[in-house]
């Protein structure tokens, strides 16, 4: 299997993309920004904001952070707990 990251989608974002989990290819130097750009090509991605919150391996990340093979990347709608 080639280098890839797991992308998790939740709540309204999962509804928009029609799935709660994707596998996306990553290479040397792939950033969160790159992954979001690739995600934006998917049907329904127009319903996501231009710069959603992202977590890498369960911690909030910046768009410039690197994504490595095997990472868990979550695209996080505005939180509404409580």
């Amino acid at each position, binding site marked *: 299997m080639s280098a890839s990251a797991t992308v998790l989608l939740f709540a*309204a974002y999962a*509804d928009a993309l029609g799935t709660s989990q994707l596998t996306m290819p990553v290479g040397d130097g792939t950033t969160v920004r790159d992954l979001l750009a690739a995600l934006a090509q998917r049907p329904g991605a127009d319903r996501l904001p231009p710069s959603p919150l992202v977590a890498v391996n369960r911690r909030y990340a910046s768009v410039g952070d690197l994504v490595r093979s095997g990472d868990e990347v979550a695209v996080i*709608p505005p*939180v509404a707990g409580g």
Partner: protein
Amino acid sequence: MRSAIVTRPLDPGALLREVATTRCGATALFVGTVRDLHDGRAVTGMDYEAYAAMAERELADIVAEAVARFGTGQVVCEHRTGALALGDASVAIAVAHPHRSPAFDACRYVIEELKRRVPIWKREHYADGTRQWVDPTGAARPRAAR
């Protein structure tokens, strides 16, 4: 200190007993419950969804921060996920401290940070049969889904 994301009903009384110690003279408790109205629309129930692994870690961080900031180890928080009915408790936070001011402040700290950082989402069920994910930013709301 303890925190958890759970699917069973919350028991605020049990949290009060859990944080109780004779070293502490003040206990503050917050309970969030499903209410029947949001932005003027009649609500009939609520689904809570979490990114559970991250939510558990983030909530544990927040509780540890409260312990460090306010100088008490007696902090417990539980958040429930799944389908909740009107009046059901979605979150409960109990803090015991020797003094009341930091007890209140620590309890407040946990709920405010929880609402800011913990990846949990809720979908309201409306009296007209539709459902919608709550967007607390007030940004372009996702269309009622499913």
